[in-house]
């Protein structure tokens, strides 16, 4: 049975479709693996399911970030405020997976409402990094990254608003893909920042990411902003990078990068050249303002998106016999965690009459400039590359007291989110953390023009093959 868990998603689906492997047996094997979660990565686990034998994901169990609504299955967004809520409908992304033959294996822990970079903002406690349980798995899709890295699920989906798929994938040593904004429907994904949120896969390898993306993507009549990827994507097979140009942003903040991460990043650039790729430098002059713009736009949208959690229709309602205002205030005071409250306040302020232009308006202008920077870069090169995260996984509690230090985790991932372009993080090697300790995974981020997912996956696959990182090395500590 252990052998079954070694299969990639693509391999397993092929064997189930061919009748070589029983869907029930395969699902049961993963259910048992998931039951051994010691990382606090699952918030809910399926007791049955996964009997489909047809479709590109026939019989594949999928771990789903608890931000996706699943009919009849508790959905919390890791918040107390909707504790006990069982959605009457299923998110389009999950439904598409199910229609492709996949089954729901479990719902994964996350930062509350996807706000965080360490998974320490969950109302249900932090997820532990399978490589070192004293460290964070990254966030906000920390549970989804941890279960794949720890061998508690063959694949997972998460959401990425400013790096929430790529950064935890990087910190857990797996593949994480944020598709182009609009490639995957957001219907049923609990909104954090609507103009940035995007669903994507977290997998052991690039081929599995491609397989899942092809199922997830598509225009959805329930999401006016969804367009899909024309023609879908195919599982990549490319092994070289000949004729492809990779650019490092000239303004890459070298100082902020951990030495170990820098070493792996530079080694990866060398691997690209060895595969026939060309390394260049492009200016992204506004990218350094990405964090500032992001932390205005995302909280502004969040302040509005989270206003519906008022205790009137579902979820928790604080006890009290006061008036309407008191009900709102006490419910929201008790239901939201500190980081969520911080962002609601930031966002409310940024949208306030008299401050709108100075904050929200200005941030949108920065966003446009960042987009234009990428457009200009992609006229000269095929990809922009950076480390995914400035550091390897950091210690639990290390950055919780300093929100700004925590926000800097998103330094390399936020610009792509603001520009709406696709970006993937693949594990590029191991590095010693600052302050010592066992080596930990380092992610390498590749970004491509909007809807150029196929090109992105092809290049990532070639690079992944050459790097030869064993994504399963984190499993030993998983459960």
């Amino acid at each position: 049975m252990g052998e079954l868990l070694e299969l990639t998603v693509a391999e397993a689906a092929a064997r189930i479709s061919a009748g070589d492997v029983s869907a029930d047996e395969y699902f049961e094997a993963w259910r048992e693996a998931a039951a051994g979660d010691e990382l606090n990565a699952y918030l809910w686990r399926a007791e049955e399911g996964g009997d489909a034998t047809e479709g590109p994901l026939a019989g594949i169990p999928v771990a789903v970030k608890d931000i996706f609504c699943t009919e009849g299955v508790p959905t919390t967004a890791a918040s107390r405020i909707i504790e006990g809520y069982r959605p009457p409908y299923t998110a389009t992304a999950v439904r598409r997976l199910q229609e492709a033959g996949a089954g729901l294996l479990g719902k994964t822990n996350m930062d509350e409402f996807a706000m965080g970079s360490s998974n320490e903002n969950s109302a249900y406690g932090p997820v532990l990094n399978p490589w070192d349980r004293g460290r964070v798995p990254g966030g906000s899709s920390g549970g989804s990254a941890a279960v794949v890295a720890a061998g508690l699920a063959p694949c997972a989906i998460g959401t990425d608003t400013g790096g929430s798929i790529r950064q935890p994938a990087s910190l857990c040593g797996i593949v994480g893909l944020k598709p182009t904004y609009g490639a995957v429907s957001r219907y049923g994904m609990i909104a954090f920042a609507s103009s940035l949120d995007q669903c994507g896969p977290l997998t052991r390898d690039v081929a599995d990411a491609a397989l899942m993306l092809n199922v997830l993507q598509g225009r959805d009549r329930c999401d006016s902003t969804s367009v899909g990827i024309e023609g879908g994507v195919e599982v990549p097979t490319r092994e070289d990078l000949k004729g492809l140009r990779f650019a490092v942003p000239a303004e890459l903040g070298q100082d902020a990068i951990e030495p170990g991460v820098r070493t792996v990043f530079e080694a990866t650039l060398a691997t690209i050249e060895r595969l026939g790729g060309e390394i260049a430098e492009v200016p992204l002059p506004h990218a350094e303002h990405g964090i500032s713009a992001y932390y205005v736009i995302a909280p502004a949208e969040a302040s509005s998106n989270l206003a519906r959690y008022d205790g009137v229709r579902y979820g928790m309602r604080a006890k009290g016999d006061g008036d309407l205002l008191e009900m709102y205030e006490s419910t929201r005071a008790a239901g939201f965690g500190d980081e969520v409250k911080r962002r609601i306040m930031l966002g409310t302020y940024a949208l306030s009459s008299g401050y709108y232009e100075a904050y929200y308006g200005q941030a949108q202008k920065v966003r446009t400039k960042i987009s234009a920077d990428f457009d200009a870069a992609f006229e000269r090169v095929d990809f922009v590359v950076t480390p995914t995260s400035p550091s390897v996984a950091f210690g639990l509690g290390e950055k919780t007291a300093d929100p700004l230090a925590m926000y800097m985790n998103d330094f390399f991932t936020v610009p792509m989110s603001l520009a709406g372009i696709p970006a993937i993080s693949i594990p590029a090697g191991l590095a010693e953390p600052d302050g010592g300790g066992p080596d930990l995974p380092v992610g390498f981020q590749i970004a491509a023009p909007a809807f150029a997912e196929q090109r992105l996956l092809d290049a990532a696959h070639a690079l992944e093959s050459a790097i030869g990182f064993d994504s399963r090395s984190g499993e030993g500590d998983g459960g």
Partner: protein
Amino acid sequence: MAELEAVIGLEIHVQLSTKTKMFCGCALSFGDEPNVHTCPVCLAHPGVLPVPNEEAIRCALKIAAALDCDVAPRSIFHRKNYFYPDSPKAYQISQHDLPLATDGRLGGIRIHRAHLEEDAAKTIHVGESGRIHGSGASLVDFNRGGTPLVEIVTEPDLRSAAEAASWARLLRTTVSQLGVSNVNMEEGSLRIDANVSVRPAGSEQLGTKTELKNMNSFRFLERGIEAELARQRELVEAGESVVQETLHFHPEDGSLTPLRSKEEAHDYRYFPEPDLVPLVPTEAMLREAREALPELPEARMERYREEMGVAEDAAAVLVTDPATAEYFEQTAAAAGGVEARTIANWVTGELAATLRQAGEDGAADSKVEPESLAALAAMVQEKKISHGSGKQVLAAMVAEGGEPAAIVEREGLAQISDSGELEAIVSAAVDANPAAAEQIRAGNGKAIGAIVGAVMKKTKGRADGGEVNRLIREKLGL
């Protein structure tokens, strides 16, 4: 002090009568059991997204065309954020600085803008106050939540309460003819708020305005504005100033009370709705909206006056109800020798009055066929029956339908055409009223009424009034 001039602008909410809500697939309804027309989207469950209703956009484009507005090639939706149980998302999706339509005109009044938005749910406050403050509990019915609305805002071009009410009626008829709304004020599918201020006549500056809400009939609209104008005039004349506030109209006693400032102290934190893409109507949609326009009241009134010679006030009455206007046109077409002007007077005068007395609705729904009314008008014009008999026949037609000729025959109402017979009756009546006869001879023309009355009584109204007058004077040698 210069005379104070009223300056009034209206904000009109028109509920569209689409099949489904603005951003979800729930059916529209009125008066159904609470909370049966709901879904995750209009209840604002976590994770849901709005999808615009194409039919609502088409309806809004028709309204824009009827109001002669410029349609924006690209308009966007905004979120208007506020906490209240009638707003499950805690924001209303509306349009803000890039509305669908601007710069229109209707009946000489400029339209500032018209935009699409969604209606709030209905809150019912249990308790005596009927308002949320002091109520024991509040209930929310989400059936209405998400109903498509078009908000129309006029420029402050109206100068009296009566003008405002009359213009609002024109707007209602216009929108009604587009078939995009029931425009029923009692049911709330047409809601009109008024912005009211006063200023010295001739001044270009606007005074401080107040906003009047909850006037759910044209009569209340007029009364509310009238009351507020009186209050503002009194304040200004006393040297005091008007405070900008929102006032709630109470239909029971016609009074206005301020809404608690807490209820309106909103910073709506508008920002572009990221869940929706810009609204870009195609050329075909715009053309379709324009081509679908029926003849609207303004154009119809023009035609009645210019081409058909109908008097202005009768034309104005006719066009307020398209069905009545249609009825009038059918009647006029059936009436060979009777002028349209006369037919219009029959429809808006005798017929309307008779229907009102009988407690019936409009002419179009009555038992009186247009051809029958035309025949009646012809009989009166040709003096086959007297005008008074005509009224009696009309009452019978309203009650039971039928042809006027048959009713005249049955009731014996044909005008006395035998001049000998009428002369004898007149002669007897003059003899029976010597005092009146004397007064008439003395030059008191009004005294003739008594003798005419006696003749009419005797003939049961079957005599022609003009002829009776002539015969009386002849008898008296005048």
